[in-house]
């Protein structure tokens, strides 16, 4: 199998996983696609140096988070995805059984959204999240606390009651 064929196979496998993380991070389909393409393109440029192909997914995810973090640093990007004044409550849930988490995530500032996604979706530790986002562990904790408080406000009783039912 040639290197290009290996890479094509890798893209087919890694794409859905990376796209879901990217979508949660940036909250918009087109940006998520752009983010994953950028991360995979950078991975391709380093493909010859990734001797352990099994580690390629981790490498691509790291590049994706680094790229997203650079995007967060751009004020213009934040404005492009901002919804202006935040509503008092997010739009009604898309399903009576599932609260509209996507809208609630979009209402968070980028850093808080990234902290939530990395800690609770990617299952990274506080230290790993701090390292990935280049912030201090204390900031990860405080941002998590702020984000959780906002999510509770946005998702209201649904979040609390659903949580109780899952206990």
């Amino acid at each position, binding site marked *: 199998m040639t290197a290009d064929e290996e890479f094509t196979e890798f893209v087919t496998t890694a794409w859905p996983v990376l796209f879901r993380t990217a979508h949660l991070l940036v909250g918009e389909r087109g940006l998520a*696609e752009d983010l994953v*393409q950028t991360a995979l393109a950078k991975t391709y*440029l380093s493909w010859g140096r990734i001797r352990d192909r099994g580690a390629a997914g981790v490498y691509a995810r790291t590049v994706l988070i680094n790229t997203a973090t*650079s995007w967060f640093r751009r004020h213009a990007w934040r404005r492009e995805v*901002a919804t202006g004044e935040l509503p008092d409550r997010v739009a009604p849930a898309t399903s009576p059984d599932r609260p509209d988490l996507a809208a609630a995530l979009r209402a968070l500032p980028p850093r808080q959204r990234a902290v939530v*996604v990395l800690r609770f979706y990617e299952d990274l530790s506080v230290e790993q999240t701090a390292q990935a986002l280049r912030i201090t562990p204390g900031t990860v904790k405080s941002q*998590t606390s*702020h984000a959780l408080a906002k999510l509770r406000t946005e998702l209201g009783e649904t979040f609390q009651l659903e949580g109780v039912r899952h206990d």
Partner: protein
Amino acid sequence: MTDHDSGRLATLLREEAAAIDVPAPDAAAVRHRARGMRRRRRGLEAVAGLVVVAAVTTGVTAGVRGAGPGGGGVDAAAMAAYREQGAFAVGRVLHIGEHQVRFESAVTSIYYTGAGVLVRRGPVADGETGGPTRYTLVRPDGSARDLGGLRMADRVPGTDIDSPYVAYAEPHEGASSPRPGLNTAWDLVAVDVTTGAEVARHEITGAFTWGGWQAPPVTTDGTRIRALLDQGWVELDWSTGAVRTVPGTAGVTLEAAHGVYADEADPAWVVRDFATGKVLRSVRPREPMLGGLLSPDARYGRILDDYLSSDGVPPATPVRIVTLSNGATVTLPGSRFYGWTPDGSVLAFDPEAGTVAVCDPVTGSCDGARRVPAGTVRLGGLSYES
């Protein structure tokens, strides 16, 4: 946060992710994009090297130990040494010019002012593990003054190498919203670090939804304070009370120093004068969507040609320093962390050798390397705001 909160959130996120409609992968498009990046890289590699910024780690607070009282004049030699050699900290010890000041807790940030270094100890963000944040002025002669009344926490203050002020923004009293982004009235505050006295407080208005800090980040020089709101840089001259939005700055990057600002206007990093809007320099980084960092005196820029290090190890890639007035570029070696001195020289920390040196931003020559003990190093001229 309870375990069931976090468990419930993880479940909701997995459900949300599973419901996302994933487009089909296109490996050919990815390869095409990669080859485009490679072409851009090759085209630029012939011109110069690249740069990475690195952040180091943290510490917690306490009082000053072994430092003399603040106040009084500072002799010219000490001031010259401060301007030329800058400041850095290793753990609890601040090195300023030819002096050292030991604190009872680690230094977490160093801000250059015209009166010396404003040192922050303690975390930047308020939170359950945040604790207090303390600020101290350390003069070029090593004397110190504790600024116990200064409370800034999770926001980005501004200082300038020629002014004795630290400036910051806070929600205007009575206008504070419990939710970031809804507050639209802010006070811009200037505090004289030599006395601790508040010298200016003026209200400005405008939405701030983009940053996630408790208040908009600010920059300052002289009697001007500028806050980066959604509408762009809003400038206050507190000597006259005049307020204006700097034209053409809606959506610019947070990067400003000594009367100029920069924007990552992909594909170029563009530096402009706040007063006139004139482009002072435009430089193209090797990577799209990256930019650069201004020296505290705004005479030089460090181009971000690559992504930031996230593992505390400086990348091996070389570092490009540009003289903004004429575009001249020098390349410094990689595998080092780089900060600035107040006069625009480059502070270089080599973790392998355990030394800090001062490098000429025009010739690239480095000298005066000082061996430093093991510990967390913070360099002056870098932002450690999260």
